[in-house]
């Protein structure tokens, strides 16, 4: 497969089509409009369906319906729109409906700004809707990673019958990079994936009361609700082993930069410069933010490290709360932050890292 030059949002849409996504519903909001626009011309080419919903609320409900019928389905939005989608996401989590959605996050709260930010971390990882459910959340830092993670996200969604979130920011969403696209699944493969779900999907069943499809985003029985919650809790716990992180020059690091998405990528470029200056810097980049890669922070050499630097495009810092849990007071943690749509600069990261090394 030859490399192509693509924008993050469009590459995500193409990756979704290639892994068998055949339904997309969405509503316009900046900076993610290229996703629905791409799907609107691409899905008809492969026998799929695009619907521009009347709202984010309706769009995610359409995805709930399409995925309840067995079709790999997707929606996308940006921060305030994701809040509106939380109703449908919670229903999908409760009813065990596999679907994938993308948050191209922007500055917040409220309508915020349309520029890139990472201010939806808590919403993405702790409470994407009512009811205490958890989701697998991928946080790519490049267009290639966004493609690979989207391709994988549909498999993860189907495997666990749960919603999966691709969390990016306006930088990863709108920048163009060379990317290798994954293989296109054949029509036969796509049909087989749908057929494999037939037992529980709303496609009609024999007049056999025991085996009808019953999509339930809740239950009248409190006993059933509790046992479902216990099953969910066990599932979430089992995901921990699938946490992913990039560890870069960590072995002898005296200052460890950490973050996710574009901030961490900027941090990685800072590490290279710091190393050239003779400063032993390293990096932990969370590739999944739920489950959080706590274990990666055990690989820090705490005898040598002087400090951890949390890099986030969010004020107040949010990701740092998980870093604190992971570091367990073994090293001091400081932050390098920007907010409201301002993009992290490498210079700010370098300054903050040098400051840690200069401190006695």
């Amino acid at each position: 497969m030859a490399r192509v030059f693509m924008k993050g949002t469009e590459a995500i849409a193409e990756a979704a089509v290639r892994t068998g996504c055949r339904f997309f519903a969405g509503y316009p909001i900046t900076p993610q409009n290229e996703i629905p626009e791409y799907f609107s011309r691409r899905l008809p080419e492969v026998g799929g369906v695009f619907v521009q919903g009347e709202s984010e609320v309706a769009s995610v409900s359409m995805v709930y319906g399409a995925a309840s019928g067995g079709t790999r389905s997707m929606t996308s939005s940006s921060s305030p729109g994701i809040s509106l989608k939380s109703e449908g996401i919670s229903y999908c989590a409760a009813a065990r409906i596999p679907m994938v959605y993308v948050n191209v996050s922007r500055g917040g709260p409220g309508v915020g700004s349309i520029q890139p930010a990472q201010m939806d971390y808590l919403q993405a990882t702790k409470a994407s809707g009512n009811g205490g459910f958890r989701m697998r959340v991928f946080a790519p830092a490049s267009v290639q990673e966004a493609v690979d993670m989207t391709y994988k996200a549909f498999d993860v969604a189907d495997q666990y019958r749960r919603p999966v979130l691709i969390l990016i920011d306006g930088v990863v969403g709108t920048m163009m990079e060379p990317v290798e696209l994954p293989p296109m699944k054949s029509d036969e493969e796509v049909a087989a994936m749908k057929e494999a779900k037939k037992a529980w999907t709303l496609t009609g069943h024999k007049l056999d009361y025991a085996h009808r499809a019953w999509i339930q985003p809740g239950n009248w029985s409190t006993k059933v609700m509790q046992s479902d919650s216990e099953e969910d809790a066990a599932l979430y716990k089992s995901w921990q082993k699938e946490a992913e992180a990039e560890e870069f020059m960590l072995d002898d690091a005296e200052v460890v930069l950490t973050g996710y998405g574009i901030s961490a990528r900027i941090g990685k470029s800072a590490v290279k410069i710091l190393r050239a200056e003779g400063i032993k810097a390293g990096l932990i980049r969370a590739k999944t933010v739920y489950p959080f890669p706590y274990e990666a922070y055990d690989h820090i050499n705490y005898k040598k490290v002087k400090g951890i630097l949390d890099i986030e495009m969010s004020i107040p810092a949010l990701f740092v709360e998980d870093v604190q849990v992971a570091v367990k007071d073994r090293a001091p943690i400081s932050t390098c932050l920007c907010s409201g749509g301002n993009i992290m600069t490498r210079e700010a990261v370098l300054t903050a890292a040098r400051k840690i090394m200069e401190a006695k």
Partner: protein
Amino acid sequence: MELIYSRTKTIQEDKVSGFCPGCMHGTVMKLIGEVIDELGIIEKTACVLGIGCCGLQMDYMAYDNATAPHGRACAVATGLKRTNPDTLVFTYQGDGDLASIGLAETMSAANRGENITVIFINNGIYGMTGGQMAPTTLVGMKASTAPFGRNAKDHGYPMHMCEILNQLTAPAYLVRTSCNNPQNVMKTKNAIKKAFKNQLEGKGFSMVEIVTSCPTNWGLDPLKCLDYIEEKMLPEYPLGVIRDR
């Protein structure tokens, strides 16, 4: 002996509906079941349920079903039907669900001409939550959130969903029926059958609005509810075919 009547197979055996005495949901469920039996479509039928009393059927009807978020049934049905065009997809919604919180979803699905069927139960009140005012509550009718009766100055007027949707170009079939007497029950059954057939023939959006009662929250016994429908509800919500194309 000749068997001239039996329970519809589309209602599960040995199940209890859970509806209040005198509630017409059970009547409508029976009609839907009979239509599905007569059309022989049980193996290709899926229902999207609204939130409220209309969702009580989930446990005892025999067809595939999903519960939509409150008001979103037409959106859920859109996603399901577009990706499974051979499945008969219908929504079953109350007035709070369809005409208040789901107004955008209802209007937009109708405007797109989605090839789905909407069964709309209009009893002028929120049932399951305990009798609050609905968009369809009559002026003067008491509700738990309008204890002195709906007044037009503060609450506006009842919404006529068939007539509102009739402003749109796309819908194929809009009809209002009731279940307040045997004749109207038969008309309701015929309307449901026509609406399902429309979908099977690919004609697009059909809605059957059924004027019913809520003895519990109206505070009337079931028989008096029938009079109330005749004397109060039907003058506000005249029965008949509003659109058929």
